[in-house]
């Protein structure tokens, strides 16, 4: 799905060659500052590489319209953003930005259940705790049904139980719908338990790529 050829981004990232398979769960692991977030931001063109080229489904990413690409490859940043308004507004805003049709409350409630958020759709989103905001932001991107979902440390504000439930749900959902999930995480445990491929990064370079046979 993604193929990187001699990609450099300033002096932060330097990847000679890397392939990320389609319809799989891929985890990018490494310490903070290893270049995981930069790599994800390159995939949905929040930034562009300073050298080399990234190919998405064999098309050079530099030639693909950024907006179209981001509507297909949605990214959830590590610090989730909550927009002014209710939980409903926050769930629907992704569909609004990507100009997709709105959906009914029933589906919104299902999503809240999926991300373990026991709240009313009418509640003011600003009042949620850090972990709840993160789950709401996660629900928002799941609702958009992207072909590729990029998650940057999706469980950083979650306790271990919630983390396990949500990641399991996400991975299940991705596999069932034939989508791709790329997760940047510092947790080797998550990577080991849920991914098909693990990419290990250090100082902006890929130091190891391994496929997990049993998924």
């Amino acid at each position, binding site marked *: 799905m993604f193929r990187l050829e001699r990609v450099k981004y300033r002096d932060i990232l330097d990847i000679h060659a890397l392939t990320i398979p389609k319809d799989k769960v891929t985890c990018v692991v490494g310490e903070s500052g290893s270049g995981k977030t930069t790599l994800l931001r390159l995939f949905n*063109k929040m*930034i*562009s590489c300073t050298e080399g080229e990234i190919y998405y489904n064999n098309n050079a990413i530099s030639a693909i319209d950024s*907006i179209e690409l981001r*509507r297909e490859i*949605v990214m959830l940043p590590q610090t989730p*953003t909550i927009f002014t308004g209710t939980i409903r507004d926050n769930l629907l805003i992704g569909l609004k*930005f*990507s100009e997709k049709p709105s959906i009914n409350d029933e589906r919104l409630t299902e999503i809240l259940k999926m991300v373990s958020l026991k709240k009313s759709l009418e509640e003011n989103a600003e009042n949620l705790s850090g972990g709840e905001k993160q789950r709401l932001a996660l629900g928002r991107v799941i609702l958009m049904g992207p072909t590729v979902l990029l998650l940057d440390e999706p469980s950083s504000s979650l306790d271990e139980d919630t983390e396990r439930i949500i990641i399991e749900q996400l991975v299940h959902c991705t596999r069932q719908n034939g989508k791709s999930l790329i997760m940047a995480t510092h947790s080797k445990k998550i990577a080991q338990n849920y991914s098909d491929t693990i990419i290990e990064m250090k100082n902006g370079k890929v130091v190891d790529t391994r496929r997990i046979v049993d998924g």
Partner: protein
Amino acid sequence: MDKVIDLQIWQLAAAYIFVGILLFIVRLRGIPREKEIIISSIRMTLQLILTGYILIYLFDNSNPFLTILAVGIMEIFAVHNIFKRVKVKLSNKLKIIIALSMVAGTTLSLLFFIFVVINLSPWYDPRYFIPIGGMLIGNSMTGISLGVSRLVEGMTDQKHLIESALMLGATSKMASKGIVDSAFDSAILPTINSMVGMGIVFLPGMMTGQILSGTSPVTAIEYQIAVMLGIVGSVALTVMLFVQFGYKTFFNEQHQLNI
């Protein structure tokens, strides 16, 4: 109509007592503003005397090129003043947008005012063209200064909100809509507020000047209403042009933020 009271030099000099009172107060309270007060009083006096002589020359030598030149110089000073007044750092692209919005917005409003509202003949009569141009340019300058500050601060302070919206597939226009609207609103609000108090809380400068120089209050008010509406139009048009093109300077052609 009563004869206009011509101020004698000593009468004008007596008015400087107000500056003396101000100087006395700041010295008494230990506020370090004496230098600025003296410099600004001298500047105001010299600038107005100079402007007076320039206007006499322009009025006596009514000429379209001289009139346009005078308004052009006002535009240059206004744009320069905006760059100086705005405390945030401005990119070269944004400076160009500010200058173009000022020139386009005020010129369109001024031409509409001259040709349609007062139907001036000849159209370049400096007695009307220059003071009206000055009022439109001055007020648009204040409006756009507020708009620039609000837009730049909004873009910088809410960078994470814009980035999140972009990550969700928003165009740069959608992602910055809230900030653009807020910049426009804060830029035109003082003009709207000044309409509310006009005639009750204060008599605007132009009208006061006309009345003092012997014009009937009714005529002065007619002109003031027309000029005020012209100012609203000019400020709105200038700021609208600025925010509509200004926000684009924060993004590159790949819809990436370049702050």
